[in-house]
């Protein structure tokens, strides 16, 4: 079954996805300017896109791009109060970061954005990242995702460790809190034990969205079990359709409803004139392994519609060539064509990210269970 509307997100990483984008005059240093990031997010919001994303990593960058970046989650916290409806999906890695911190930081991003936070779960694969912490050796991929799986379990339990009505402010008994509604999570796993509860009350969405890139068997397995949004990177429409079908089957086998999970393909996107200019700057056309949508607005809109309508994907995470040029073009030229076709939503801006993906605010897993304090 396909969704009524295409889901569209835009990556705001660096100076843009094209390797020459940061060589445009002034582009690199501007990536440190919070006002620029706010302006980009507001442009995406004006286009009624579903979310913007920021990647983050402790690994060395694998492609030539801006050689620095700020903490993704904090960057989106800076954006949150100046936007009202766009989803904010930040990558936070699980390999070296404490799950307790991950949980409260994302719950707080959800708080300051009034329910627009999403967590892109990622792992740190290389020796370089391990040496930044000096706490453990690099781990094989299977082990990294086993640990990520445990981290997600801890984080999502902590998000539920406060029931929504735990704060009672009962003057009669002098109690601020109903402690029967605050729960220890008592997680004991292979990688860590976490007692809980969180120090942070349950956030507006209850559970911010979990996003996972299904890059290999290990990450695909965790994605099928845990993700609300799965990112794939197939460049071929038939390959993508097969992947989505396989993922949906796997999700169903795990007892989840596949319609609750959106499969988005990551796609480079660029307007042809700008692309030519950037390629020249880069000294030639660089190979792209992911889907690459390049052309005029009509062509790109048609491609997005074709992929969506054929059931290959539920939507796209667009990686614009250059910021802000490509995002202006997407919002002002491409999006209106899709809106005209009824492919993207044309309704009043929706407030929470869960609402955008048609997901109800979930029941608290600990509700109606007695605290074992």
């Amino acid at each position, binding site marked *: 079954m396909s969704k009524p509307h295409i889901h569209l997100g835009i990556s705001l990483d660096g100076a843009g996805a094209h390797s020459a984008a940061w060589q445009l005059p002034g582009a690199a240093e501007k990536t440190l300017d919070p006002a620029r990031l706010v302006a980009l997010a507001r442009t995406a919001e004006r286009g009624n896109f579903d979310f913007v994303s920021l990647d983050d990593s402790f690994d060395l960058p694998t492609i030539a791009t801006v050689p620095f970046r700020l903490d993704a989650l*904090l960057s989106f916290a800076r954006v949150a109060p100046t936007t009202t409806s766009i989803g904010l999906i930040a990558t936070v890695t699980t390999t070296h970061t404490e799950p307790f911190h991950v949980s409260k930081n994302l719950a707080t991003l959800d708080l300051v954005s009034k329910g627009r936070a999403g967590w892109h779960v990622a792992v740190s694969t290389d020796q370089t990242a391990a040496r930044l912490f000096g706490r453990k050796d690099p781990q094989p991929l299977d082990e990294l995702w086993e640990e990520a799986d445990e981290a997600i379990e801890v984080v999502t339990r902590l998000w539920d460790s406060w029931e929504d009505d735990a704060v009672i402010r009962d003057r009669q008994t002098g109690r601020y809190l109903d402690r029967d509604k605050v729960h220890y999570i008592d997680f004991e796993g292979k990688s860590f034990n976490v007692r809980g509860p969180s120090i942070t009350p349950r956030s507006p969405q209850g559970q911010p969205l979990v996003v996972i890139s299904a890059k290999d068997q290990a990450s695909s397995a965790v994605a099928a079990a845990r993700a609300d949004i799965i990112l794939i990177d197939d460049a071929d429409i038939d390959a993508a359709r097969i992947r989505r079908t396989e993922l949906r089957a796997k999700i169903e086998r795990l007892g989840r409803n596949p319609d609750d999970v959106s499969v988005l393909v990551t796609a480079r996107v660029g307007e042809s004139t700008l692309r030519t200019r950037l390629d020249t700057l880069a000294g030639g056309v660089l190979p792209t392994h992911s889907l690459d949508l390049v052309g005029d607005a009509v062509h790109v809109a048609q491609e997005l519609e074709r992929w969506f309508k054929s059931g290959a994907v539920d939507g796209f995470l667009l990686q614009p060539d250059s910021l802000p040029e490509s995002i202006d073009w997407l919002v002002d030229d491409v999006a209106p064509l899709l809106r005209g076709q009824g492919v993207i939503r044309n309704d009043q801006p929706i407030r929470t990210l869960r609402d955008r993906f048609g997901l109800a605010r979930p029941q608290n897993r600990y509700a109606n269970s007695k605290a074992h304090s």
Partner: protein
Amino acid sequence: MTKPLKQIHLAAHFPGVNSTTVWSDPTAGSQTDFASFVHLAQTAERGKFDFFFLAEGLRLREHLGKIFDLDVVGRPDSLTVLAALAAVTDRIGLAGTLNTTFNEPFELARQFASLDHLSGGRAAWNAVTSPDAFTGENFRRGGFLDYELRYPRASEFIQVVRQLWDTWGEDPLVPESNAPFRHEGDQFNIEGVFDVPRSPQGWPVQIQAGDSDGGREMAAQYADVIFSSHSGYRDGQEFYADVKARLPRYGRSPDDLKIIPAAVAVVGDTDDEARELFADIRMQQVSPQGAIAFLEQVWGRDLSEYDPDGPIPDFDPDVDGTHSITRGRVRHIKDPLAVARKWREIATAKNLSIRQLVIEVTTRSAFVGSASSVASLINQYVQDDAADGYILVPHLTPHGLDRFVDEVVPLLQERGVFRTDYEGTTLREHLRLGRAVPGKNSASKTSTKV
């Protein structure tokens, strides 16, 4: 020759998760809504305060084996809230506590450098050192750190963080300006490339709060600001003289470290009205149930059968119980028998009930009076070197600072001892500290090999 007037530094403490914060007042708003943080931060900025501060605790407090439910409980993550506040404020400094035991230097350095970029140079880090196993149960490494090692780890942590902040030259676009780092020490053995270019302040402002000898020494070596609980006149002067005298040892001048005790200010139309107001607030802060819980911390056992308006227990505390009854608190009672004896004497002499006694023994000095009296007192304390300024701890969220900002700040400004507008854009400028220059400080030179 007369001494030039000192300029006062003021900071605002978001009401915390303890009995100081009154949630039961009809005007008390949400303790966790972002709007509450925005109101307090914007009020402090309207008052031209130096910075706005968020505390942290990484485990909910427990009392008698259960989560303590009488005080405010729960708070959002400090760094994330501060980054969001950077969007709705323009000049005020944004300070947060982060623990050196349950964080790692690379990640923390990156977060504060990011906050400094995102706020245009307004970030400050209050480094705390608590290594308790109780909090450690929430972290993968658990309560691994010996109590004696908390300052060695904290000071090595701060040195490494500064080393990372110093790896970048002033221009992020010169790739060779970012040198790889390597640190080998007792606590950390790390190397790599720091990926956040030098932030507007170079080094975010360093705050420290320890009151022990080790804490004061660490502050003298590293801190730009030290918090203390010495808000009185005489104890303030003693603390001030002691800490400032330690600075020359580290090649620092007295102005390099600002002493900012936590203080309470209660403003009324008249001095008498303010005193009544303060008495009412103290009653609110010590609820009947809270008074019993406070007594239980000393007696080390359940006293719920006791009447808060009746006499205090006539038997001695359970000494073993005292050490385990409350977990996750900053302070513990060291000699419960002596404390109980003293309290009994006070209660008998003054004929106090349990609740009255608790109010009596927990009331600390405060600036209480009309706006004019409060302004005079604060100014006198600062000019007489009892402090360089104060971090105000309001008892109400979110309106607890309104009256001070509207009525006391203008009087301080009239006297020429407090800024009428921000002169700079960064917190270092508000605090009249120099910009941190790469490699200038001795700490960054020694930190490659500890």
